[in-house]
């Protein structure tokens, strides 16, 4: 294990909580500070499950293996403690919170990270928020809107990036952030992520996607191919390009053959 590791996953298995259906099957992964890892795979391969298990979604249950985040036993922590420790999940489907402004939502998120009895300085927070919005070239009025309420797909994803910018995580899990975005919206979101990476070169990213497209804008250090709950191949950016041409069919065939033997 590298000293620089921010996330280390060893032989992680997980089920959907309601049924004993293995989704993750002995998954290994190590992500170091500042690295960008892309995880690609077909529908149903367990990519999104991995993101949810790592963030502590109540609908999934790790059954064996372990995961260390910044040296701590991740699987023993509550979701909010994982967030407070510096993990951030950019949702594939960000949830609407009617009546709660983005500013209020983020202020509450920041406040929750403080020690009991400590109060967030509202002026400092306001400065931070405005600074972050300026960095991402967003209109300040955006923060007055209710969280994701009536947002377009692109606005929802930009809101995720804004939250990331304010909360300044050590590790970001991006769950199919590119899905449902047109190319312009994708560029805006990617440029936001890149701006944040420049600002904090130690921030690591696990980028989950179907498509190679987003990797044109956010360059990965490592690309993993995930099929049926396992990582079946890892390599440089060339893996993604190769995958784009070949598709996932060859692994499926290999799997079927392996199963037949």
């Amino acid at each position, binding site marked *: 294990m590298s000293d620089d590791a921010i996330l280390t996953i060893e032989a992680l298995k997980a089920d959907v909580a309601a049924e004993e259906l293995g989704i993750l099957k002995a998954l290994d992964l190590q992500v170091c500070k500042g690295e960008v890892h892309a995880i690609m795979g077909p529908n149903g391969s367990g990519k999104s499950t991995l993101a949810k298990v790592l963030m502590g979604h109540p609908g999934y249950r790790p059954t064996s293996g372990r995961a260390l985040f910044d040296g701590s036993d991740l699987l023993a922590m509550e979701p909010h403690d994982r967030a407070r420790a510096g993990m951030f999940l950019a949702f594939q489907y960000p949830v609407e*919170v009617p*009546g709660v402004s983005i500013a209020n*939502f983020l202020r509450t*998120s920041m406040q*929750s990270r403080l020690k009991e009895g400590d109060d967030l300085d509202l002026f400092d927070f306001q400065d931070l928020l405005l600074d972050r919005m300026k960095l991402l070239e967003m209109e300040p009025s955006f923060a007055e809107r209710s969280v994701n309420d009536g947002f377009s797909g692109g606005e929802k994803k930009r809101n995720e990036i804004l939250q990331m910018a304010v*909360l300044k995580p050590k590790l970001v899990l991006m769950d199919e952030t590119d899905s449902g975005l047109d190319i312009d919206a994708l560029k805006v979101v990617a440029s936001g992520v890149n701006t944040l990476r420049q600002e904090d070169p130690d921030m690591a990213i696990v980028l989950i996607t179907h498509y190679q497209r987003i990797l044109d804008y956010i360059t990965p250090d490592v690309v993993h191919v995930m099929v049926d709950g396992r990582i079946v191949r890892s390599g440089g950016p060339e893996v993604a390009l190769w995958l784009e041409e070949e598709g996932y069919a060859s692994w499926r065939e290999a799997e079927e053959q392996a199963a037949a033997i």
Partner: protein
Amino acid sequence: MPNNELVEVLDLDQYKYDFRTDDKPVFRTEPGLSEDVVHAISAHKEEPEWMLEFRLKAYQLYLRKPMPTWGADLSDLENVLDQIYYYVRPQDRMKNSWEDVPDNIKTTFDKLGIPEAEQKVLAGVGAQYESEMVYHSLKKEWDEQGVIFDSIEDGLKNHPDIFRKYFASVIPPADNKFAALNSAVWSGGSFVYVPPGVHLDTPLQAYFRVNQERMGQFERTLIIIDEGAQAHYIEGCTAPVYSTESFHSGVIEIVVAKNARFRYTTIQNWSNNMYNLVTQRALVNERGTMEWLDGNLGSKATMKYPSCYLVGEEAHGSILSIAYAGDGQHQDTGGKVVHAASHTTSSIVSKSISKGTGRSSYRGLCKVYEGSTSARSNVECDALLINDTARTDTYPYIEIEEQSANVGHEATVSKIGDEQLFYLMSRGMSEEEAMALIVRGFIEPIAKQLPLEYAVELNRLIEIEMEGSVG
């Protein structure tokens, strides 16, 4: 009359709050209700003959009217009504001792950040309060404009003509059993008159006035906003009302004259042994506007449907209400709009939150009389359930006799879902913090209509209520 005890009311209360008693003579009627009790109240208040007759007639009506069989469960109420004291001289109510106030109430006060002097007033154990200074300077301003803001008793004494003209004109005793009861034994409440054309910028706050004379359990309020006048009246506060009584039945009557505009804001948070049955109604004349902003927290059972009777052309009525039903509580609330003139408009927005074994019901009436052409009404009720054991129901009654009416009704029920909680928790909020934020967002459309200090208190109170809701 055994008058050596001050606040012994029900066994229920004694058990719950373990009251000690003071050894002081007070004026108080016998427990239970009789014609003699009604006589005694009227005599003690030195009322004119017509009011005594009014009370006695109302008492007969009360006896004849059946207990409502709809709404909240009132099966225990008969017992309560046999045992309570229908009249205790208001100044005698205030002599509880601070030590007697239950810890949970004190804790809530502390969490709300209410200074101790104010806490004592709210708990009914303090009489002096700094805001009296504020009140007196405002009173001078009001006097100069001809505005009357008095106790209901002083209204009857000092302004008999205007009082008699409007009293019981909006809510006659025969309206319902509890209006009849209130009419028989009313005590305490406000009398407000705003003369034609006067615009009041500062809200009239009952809060100031009731410090001098505590609100009774049969409060009666009469408000007249004369032609073209504008005012805002605020009653109650979000801090829990600590009361040794377990029954509250108020009557609030409002007359909005031609071109006048009035808003009545009330947030009430009763202790959870309380039956709270209130009739509040406004009569709105030509081009007048009436807005009810009604918040109900606490109590054992609340039945309360603020109403607007739109009797003049182009009159407008709006009802915004919010109810919070915690464990064992039933909030049966909503609103009534009656369109009895052409081009009248109304809107009802009702939001409820139910937690634990709490139950909230929306009960509303929209009535459009024949001939009230081009009336428009819109009703929206949203219920939020905090967990699986909570319950909500909707009873919308719509009676339309007019072809040209345009009436809309929309109802939603939502439950705080795992996905929503997970989203907020993934940003660092604990489950409780996440729930409280979702609830705050839910009530935001109503909270933003409140004066800031009330909105802040309401939010804080909901947060306190949400504590311990996880698990």
